C-alpha cells in the first residue's frame, strides 16, 4: 500500500458527502406540501386513473360528467354515458371547465378591498365582516345569481329570507322566451321537450340548438340521429330559417334567409297554409288567419312558394319546429316562440315530437328582474349586494346602468373564484370553489337529478371556500340555522328528506355518486296538450329595431365563450370558431355583396355604430348572412377577466340597449341597427382556414340521397380484394391497370417501416361519418385536453402555428344568401390519417416516425431531430411542430396540473401529431393482459379515443379493421366510404370517411 487515500476511505468519504449532498438537496424549504403515501388512499393506485362522476356547470344544460383523476389531480373530463343529458358526450366548453379549475388567475384567497388594492385575508375575518355588514344593512341584502343547483338555490333563498332581502336570478343566456311561450300557449311553465331524433323534417326558426341552445350535447346527438342517412337510405331533412347561418344553420339542408325577427311571420304563414281557416289553431285562429301565406311571405322577405312548399312538407310529419333561441332574441321573441308552438300544434307535433314540459331548466325573467334590482340599487335601497355565478358588469350593456348602480351600493360582495368585471368592483371577494372541488346537485330537467361531488382536493394554490359553506357560516354567525354546518351536510340533509329510511338513503346516495345520476327520468313524454288563449299581449309583427342604420346587428352567443364566461380559457380562445374559424379576436360578419358594395375587404377594421355605442372590429366576409345584416358574437372584449381574455376582441353588448323582451323578461340580443364605416386600418384574421373551397379535390365529397344504393355492383367487385387489403393495412401497391393485386404482403414490405404487419392481430382504424358530423369541434378540445397539446397564442396562431392535432375543415360547396334553396357545407374532421403507405415515414432521416405492426403511424418525440420533412410531405398537413417551448412558456402553474401523465409533454423543436390516443390503446391492451383474457386483445369498443368519446353526434368510430365483426369494420363496409385523397396519391389511410348525403344533386366536389 502506498500512502494517500485508501479505497475504503475513499468510499467512506464519498458515501458521507453524497448523503450530505442528498440531505441538503432534500431540505424542506419551500416544500410544505410533500405528501408521501404513508397511508395510501384506497382510491389511488399510482399510474391508474380514478374516475368520479359529477355534473358540468359550464352552461344551463348540466351534462353528466366523468372526471378522470390521476394521483389526486383532475386531468380530463368526459361525458357520463349513464346521464340522460350528455349520454357520454361533452361539448368543447365542457372540456374547457377544466381550465377554470386550474386557472392561474383565480383569487389566491378571500380578499378585502382597501382603497384601490385588494388585501388577502382569512376566511374568519372575511366572514365576520360579511356578517357584520349584512347585519348593519338591516334587511336590505340583495343576492344576484346563486342558482347552481336546486339545493344551493333553496339555501340562498332561505338565507336571504332569514337575513332580510331578496335573490335575483340572472342568466345572460336563457331560453326564457320559449319557456314563457310554452306557459302562454299550453299553461306549462317549463321548456318543451323536443324529440328531435323522431322528426323527419326539422325547421329551426333561428334556434342555435347545436352550439348555444338549452342543451347542445343532448340536442346534438338527437340531431345527428335525425339527420344522418341510415342503412335504409332514409334521412331527416333540416331547414333553417333565419338571417344568419349559425353552426346549427350550416348543418341545414335548406336555408330560408328570412329577415331578422320574421320568424313569427314565417311560422304563422306555414300554420295558415296547413290549417287554411285557422280553426285548428284554436284560440289563435285569428292570428293565423291574419298571417295568410302572402302576408307572411312579404314580412319574411321570401317567396310565397317557399312558404307553401315548406308548409306542405311540414304537414306530412313527423316534423318539428323550433322557435327562436338566444341568438335571435328580439323584442317579439316570445310571440315568435308562440308562433312556432302554434305551427307545431296545427301540424300535430305536440305529443309526438314536442312534449309540453320536461325540457331543460332555464331561468325565468332573467333580465327584467335584474332591471328591478338595478333600480333598487341605484335608489339606495340595497345595503349589501352579493353576486354569485354571474358577471352582469360585463354581460349587461353600459346603458343598463348596472355598473353605476352596483358601484353605489355600500358593500359589494363577489363570490367569483377568478377575477371578473363585477368582482373588480367588489369590496369583499369570497372565492368560490370550482365545481370539481365542491359539492352540489343539479336538476337539468324535471325528474333528472344528479349529485355534484368533488373530484379532487381543492387546488392548493387557491384558498377557496364553497359559497354554500360561506352562506351557512355567515348565517350561523347571524344566529340563523339553515340546516347543516357545511354545505355537504346541508345537501345530504336535503336529499335525505326525499327518502324515507336512512339505510335506503345511504344506498341511494352511494348509487347516485357512483352512477352520476339519480331520480327517475320521465323522458318528458306527455299526452297531447291543448292550446290556451294568450294571457299576455303578443305582437307577431316584425320587431322594432333601434336607430336608423342600414344594417341589422345580430348579436349571438359564442359557441366557444357562451356569453363570455369561457373567455379566459386558452383552449377556447384558440379553438377556431366553428362557423368563422377565427381564433382569439372578434370579428364582424358581413355578406360578400354588402362588403363589395361598400368597398370593404376581409380584415378591414370598421367602426360599428349603434345608437347605444360603437366598436372597432375587423370584418370577416361570410356568405351565410343576409345582405342587410351583420353579426357579432358575444364573449370578447373582457377588461378584468384574466390574462387570456383581457383585451381580446370586443364586447358586443356595448352596442345593445338594455331592453328586456316582453313578456318573458329575457335580454334582447337583436335590438338595433348599426352603421358600418371603415377606419382605414387593417388587421389580419387569425384563422386556420387556408381556403374554404376544396377545388374539386376528393377531400370532402358528398353523394345525393337519390344516388344511394345505385352504385354499380361490378365496380365494387373489381376493387374488392384491393380494398380489403388496404383495409387491413400494410403497404399494398396499387396494381397496374387491369392487373391483379399482388400477393399480400409483398416481399419488400416485410422490412423497414412495414415489417411484421402480417403478424399483427389488429389494424387500428377509424370511421368518420360526415353525414353525422356537425362541426361542433368538441373533438378538437377533447383531443387537446387528452394529449397535452399546448396553445400557442394569438401571434403564433396568426403565423399558422396552432398545435391542435385535429381540426374541423369547413368547405363551402353552396352557401349563398341570394339563392339559398339548398345548402351544402362540408365539415371534415381532419386528423392524422395513419396511412398504410405514409409519405411522412420514408423521409424521416432518423426513424422518428414509423409504422407499428398494428398500422398506427407513430411519432417518437425523443428521437425527433426536427427536420420537418415529414410535415412537408404530409398531404393532409396534420403534423404540428413545437416552434417554441410552448408547453413551458405558455402554461403557467397550476395550469400544468392538467397534463395527462400518460402522454409525453413535448418540448421545443420536435414534430407531433395524432397518435390514435396510443395511451388508451396501451391501457386497454394492458388490461387485457392483466385480466388474463385468452386472446389478450382489447374487446371491440374498449378503446375509445378522446375525439370519439366526446363526439355528441356519434360520428367517429375507432376499432380493429382486421376484425370483420368490429363496429368500425361494419361501419366502413358502406358504399359511402372513401379515403381522403387516396385515389390520387395512394396513401391508403386508416381513417375512412363516409360521404355526406345531400338531398340535392351533388354538382361539385363530388369527384366520384
Amino acid at each position, binding site marked *: 500500500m502506498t500512502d494517500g487515500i485508501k479505497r475504503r476511505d475513499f468510499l467512506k468519504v464519498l458515501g458521507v458527502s453524497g448523503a450530505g449532498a442528498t440531505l441538503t438537496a432534500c431540505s424542506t424549504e419551500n416544500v410544505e406540501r410533500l405528501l408521501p403515501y404513508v397511508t395510501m388512499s384506497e382510491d389511488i393506485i399510482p399510474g391508474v386513473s380514478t374516475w368520479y362522476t359529477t355534473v358540468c356547470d359550464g352552461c344551463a344544460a348540466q351534462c353528466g360528467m366523468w372526471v378522470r383523476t390521476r394521483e389526486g389531480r383532475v386531468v380530463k373530463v368526459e361525458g357520463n354515458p349513464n346521464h340522460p343529458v350528455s349520454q357520454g358526450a361533452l361539448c368543447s366548453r365542457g372540456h374547457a371547465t377544466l381550465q377554470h379549475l386550474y386557472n392561474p388567475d383565480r383569487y389566491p384567497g378571500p380578499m378585502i378591498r382597501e382603497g384601490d388594492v385588494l388585501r388577502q385575508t382569512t376566511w374568519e375575518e372575511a366572514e365576520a365582516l360579511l356578517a357584520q355588514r349584512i347585519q348593519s344593512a338591516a334587511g336590505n341584502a340583495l343576492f344576484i345569481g346563486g342558482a347552481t343547483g336546486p339545493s344551493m338555490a333553496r339555501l340562498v333563498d332561505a338565507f336571504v329570507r332569514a337575513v332580510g332581502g331578496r335573490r335575483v336570478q340572472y342568466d345572460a343566456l336563457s331560453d326564457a322566451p320559449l319557456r314563457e311561450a310554452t306557459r302562454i300557449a299550453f299553461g306549462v311553465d317549463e321548456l318543451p321537450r323536443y324529440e328531435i331524433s323522431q322528426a323527419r323534417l326539422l325547421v329551426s326558426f333561428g334556434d342555435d340548438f347545436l352550439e348555444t341552445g338549452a342543451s347542445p350535447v343532448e340536442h346534438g346527438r338527437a340531431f345527428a340521429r335525425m339527420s344522418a342517412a341510415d342503412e335504409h337510405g332514409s334521412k331527416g331533412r333540416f331547414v333553417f330559417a333565419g338571417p344568419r347561418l349559425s353552426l346549427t344553420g350550416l348543418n341545414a339542408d335548406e336555408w330560408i334567409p328570412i329577415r331578422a325577427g320574421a320568424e313569427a311571420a314565417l311560422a304563422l304563414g306555414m300554420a295558415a297554409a296547413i290549417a287554411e281557416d285557422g280553426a285548428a289553431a284554436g284560440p289563435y285562429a285569428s292570428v293565423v288567419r291574419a298571417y295568410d301565406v302572402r302576408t307572411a311571405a312579404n314580412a319574411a322577405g321570401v317567396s310565397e312558394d317557399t312558404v307553401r312548399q315548406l308548409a306542405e312538407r311540414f304537414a306530412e310529419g313527423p316534423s318539428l319546429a323550433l322557435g327562436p333561441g338566444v341568438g335571435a332574441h328580439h323584442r317579439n321573441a316570445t310571440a315568435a316562440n308562440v308562433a312556432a308552438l302554434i305551427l307545431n300544434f296545427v301540424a300535430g307535433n305536440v305529443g309526438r315530437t314536442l312534449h309540453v314540459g320536461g325540457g331543460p331548466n332555464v331561468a325565468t325573467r332573467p333580465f327584467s328582474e335584474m332591471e328591478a334590482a338595478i333600480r333598487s340599487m341605484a335608489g339606495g335601497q340595497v345595503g349589501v349586494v352579493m353576486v354569485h355565478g354571474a358577471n352582469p358588469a360585463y354581460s349587461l350593456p353600459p346603458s343598463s346602468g348596472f355598473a353605476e348602480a352596483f358601484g353605489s351600493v355600500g358593500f359589494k360582495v363577489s363570490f367569483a373564484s377568478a377575477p371578473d368585471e363585477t368582482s373588480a368592483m367588489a369590496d369583499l371577494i369570497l372565492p368560490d370553489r370550482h365545481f370539481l372541488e365542491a359539492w352540489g346537485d343539479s336538476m337539468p330537467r324535471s325528474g333528472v337529478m344528479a349529485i355534484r361531488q368533488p373530484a379532487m382536493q381543492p387546488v392548493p394554490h387557491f384558498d377557496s371556500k364553497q359559497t354554500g359553506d360561506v352562506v351557512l357560516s355567515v348565517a350561523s354567525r347571524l344566529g340563523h340555522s339553515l340546516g347543516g354546518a357545511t354545505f355537504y351536510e346541508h345537501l345530504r340533509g336535503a336529499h335525505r328528506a326525499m327518502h324515507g329510511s336512512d339505510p335506503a338513503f345511504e344506498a341511494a346516495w352511494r348509487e347516485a355518486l357512483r352512477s352520476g345520476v339519480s331520480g327517475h327520468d320521465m323522458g318528458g313524454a306527455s299526452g297531447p296538450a291543448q292550446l290556451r288563449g294568450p294571457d299576455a299581449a303578443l305582437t307577431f309583427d316584425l320587431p322594432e329595431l333601434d336607430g336608423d342604420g342600414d344594417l341589422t346587428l345580430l348579436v349571438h352567443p359564442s359557441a366557444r365563450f357562451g356569453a363570455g364566461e369561457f373567455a379566459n380559457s386558452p383552449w377556447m380562445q384558440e379553438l377556431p370558431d366553428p362557423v368563422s374559424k377565427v381564433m382569439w379576436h372578434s370579428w364582424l360578419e358581413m355578406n360578400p355583396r354588402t362588403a363589395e358594395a361598400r368597398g370593404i375587404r376581409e380584415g378591414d377594421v370598421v367602426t360599428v355604430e349603434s345608437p347605444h355605442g360603437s366598436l372597432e372590429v375587423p370584418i370577416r366576409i361570410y356568405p351565410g348572412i343576409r345582405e342587410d345584416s351583420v353579426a357579432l358574437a358575444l364573449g370578447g372584449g373582457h377588461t378584468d377577466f384574466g390574462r387570456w381574455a383581457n383585451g381580446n376582441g370586443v364586447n358586443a353588448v356595448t352596442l345593445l340597449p338594455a331592453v328586456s323582451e316582453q313578456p318573458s323578461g329575457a335580454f334582447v340580443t337583436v335590438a338595433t341597427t348599426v352603421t358600418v364605416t371603415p377606419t382605414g386600418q387593417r388587421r389580419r384574421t387569425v384563422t386556420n*382556414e387556408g381556403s374554404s373551397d376544396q377545388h374539386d379535390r376528393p377531400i370532402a365529397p358528398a353523394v345525393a340521397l337519390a344516388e344511394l344504393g345505385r352504385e354499380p355492383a361490378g365496380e365494387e367487385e373489381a376493387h374488392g380484394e384491393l380494398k380489403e387489403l388496404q383495409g387491413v393495412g400494410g403497404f399494398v401497391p396499387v396494381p397496374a391497370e387491369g392487373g391483379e393485386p399482388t400477393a399480400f404482403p409483398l416481399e419488400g414490405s416485410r422490412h423497414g417501416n412495414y415489417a411484421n404487419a402480417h403478424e399483427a392481430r389488429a389494424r387500428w382504424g377509424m370511421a368518420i361519418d360526415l353525414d353525422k358530423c356537425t362541426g361542433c369541434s368538441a373533438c378538437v378540445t377533447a383531443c387537446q385536453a387528452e394529449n397535452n397539446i399546448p396553445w400557442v397564442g394569438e401571434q403564433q396562431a396568426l403565423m399558422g402555428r396552432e398545435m391542435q392535432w385535429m381540426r374541423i375543415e369547413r368547405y363551402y360547396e353552396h352557401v349563398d344568401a341570394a339563392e339559398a334553396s339548398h345548402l351544402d357545407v362540408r365539415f371534415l374532421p381532419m386528423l392524422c390519417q395513419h396511412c398504410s403507405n405514409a409519405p411522412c415515414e420514408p423521409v424521416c432521416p432518423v426513424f422518428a416516425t414509423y409504422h407499428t405492426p398494428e398500422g398506427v403511424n407513430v411519432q417518437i418525440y425523443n428521437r425527433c431531430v426536427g427536420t420537418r420533412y415529414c410535415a*412537408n410531405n404530409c398531404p393532409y398537413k396534420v403534423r404540428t411542430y413545437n416552434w417554441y417551448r410552448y408547453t413551458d412558456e405558455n402554461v403557467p402553474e397550476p395550469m400544468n396540473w392538467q397534463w395527462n401523465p400518460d402522454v409525453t409533454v413535448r418540448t421545443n423543436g420536435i414534430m407531433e401529431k395524432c397518435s390514435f390516443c396510443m395511451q388508451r390503446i396501451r391501457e386497454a391492451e394492458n388490461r387485457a393482459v392483466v385480466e388474463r383474457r385468452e386472446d389478450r386483445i382489447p374487446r371491440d369498443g374498449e378503446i375509445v379515443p378522446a375525439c370519439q368519446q366526446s363526439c355528441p353526434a356519434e360520428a367517429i368510430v375507432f376499432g380493429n379493421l382486421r376484425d370483420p365483426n368490429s363496429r368500425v369494420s361494419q361501419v366502413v363496409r358502406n358504399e359511402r366510404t372513401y379515403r381522403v385523397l387516396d385515389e390520387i396519391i395512394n396513401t391508403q389511410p386508416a381513417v375512412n370517411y363516409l360521404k355526406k348525403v345531400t338531398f340535392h344533386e351533388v354538382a361539385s366536389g363530388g369527384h366520384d
Partner: protein
Amino acid sequence: MAGGTPIERGALTHPDVERLSDVNRDVLRALGRPGLGWWALFALAAAGVGLFFGSWGWQLYRGIGVSGLMSPVGWGVYITTFVFWVGIAHSGTLISAILFLFRAPWRQSIYRAAEAMTVFAVMTAGLFPLIHVGRVWHAYWLVPYPNSRFLWPNFKSPLVWDVFAVTTYFTVSAVFFFLGTIPDVAAARDAAKGLRKKLYSVISLGWRGTDQQWHHFGKAYIFLAALATPLVLSVHSVVSWDFAMGIVPGWHATIFAPYFVAGAIFSGVAMVITLTVPMRKIFGLEAYLTTKHFDAMAKLCLLTSLIVLYAYLSEFFMAWYSGEEIERTAFWNRLFGTYWWASWTMLTCNGLVPILLWFKRVRHSIPALFVISIFINIGMWFERYVIVVTSLHHEYEPWAWGVYRPSIVEMGILIGSFCWFGFWFLLFTRLLPPIAIQELKEVLPPPLRKQRQEVHS
C-alpha cells in the same frame, strides 16, 4: 527558371504577361500588405459573421420559432440558402476537375479562386441543415455510427443521402483544393518570412519541386480530378432528391436532378464572375484574368441558363400535359399566386437577363458581366425559394394552405451567410495565391524554347 527573359506576347492566353517571373511577383503580391479596400471588406465580412452567429445563437436560445416558418411551409429561407450555396459550390469542381480533364485552356486563371469558392460555399451550405433543424444538438443522429440504441439512420430518407453527399463533396473538394495549392504555397513559402513561412512550410508538405514530386503531383491531380468529376453531377442530384423524393406538387418530378445540376453550374459560374471581378481589380491581376476568361465563363453561363430555362418551361408544360389538377394548380399558383413576384424574379434573372450574353460586346464588358452575374445570383436564390416555399404553401389540402413570411432572424442568417463566405474568401486571397502560379506558367511559352527556335531559324 530563366526569370528575366522576356516571353512572346500576343499569341497566348495572357498577352500582357511579359516575364515568367512577373507571375510570381504579381500573384504573390496579393499576399503582401493589404490595402484599405481589403480591410474595409474584411471588416464588413467579420461584422456579418457576428450577425450570422448572433442570429443563430438567438435562435438556439429561443427556439426555431424565431424564424417565420409555419405550417404548411416547414422549409423556407434556410433550405433555400442551403441549396443556393451547394449550387454555388458546384462550378468550382466543374472548372478544376472537368475542365482540367477536357484541357480547357481558359481554366488556369480562375480555377484556384473557383476551388476556394467551392470549399467555402460547402462550408457555408453545410451549416444550414444544422441551422434549420429543431434540435441541432441531436443532428448527429443523421450520421450512421454504432450506438447502444442499435439505431441507424433511415437510409430511405433523402436527408441521409444529403449527409453523405455534402460531406463527401466537402472532403474531396477540400483535398483537391489543398493538393492543387502545394507547389504555389511552396513558392510563397520561399518568399515569406516569420509565421507565414512556418504556415506555408506545413501546408506545402515539404515541396521541393523535384521531378519525382512533379510526377506524383501530376498523377495525383489527374486521379483526384477523375474522382471529383462524378461528384459534380451526383451531389446536386442528391440535393435535388430532397425535393423530388417528396410528393409535394412542384417537387415530385424526374427532371429535378439534371435541372438542379445545370442550375448549380449556372449559379456557380456566375458567382465566380462576381468574385473574380473585384479580386482582379483589387490585386491588379488584369493581365492574368483577361476578357478571354470572362468570355468563356459567360458562354458557360449562357449555356446553363438555356438548360435551366428549358427545365422551367418543361416543368410548366408537364404540369399542363399531365392533366393532374393539383399539379396544374400548383404551377398556376407559382406564376399568379401569392409568391408570383418570386417566380417572375426567377424567370427574369435566370431566363431573360442572360439573353444579353449572346452579344460579344456584353461578354467582353467586365462591368456588364459583373452586373449580370449579380442578377443571376439573385435569380438562382429565388429559384430555390420558389421551389421550396411556393410549392409548400399550396399543397393537396386547400384548408391547410398558408402564407410564409421570412422573419428578421432568417434574413440576418441569410445575409450573415454571405459574410461568412466572404470572410473565408477574403482570408483566402490574402493567405494563398489566388491564381495558380504553376499552371499559369505551364501555359506561358517557356522562354528557352523561344530562344532555341530563334537559333534554329
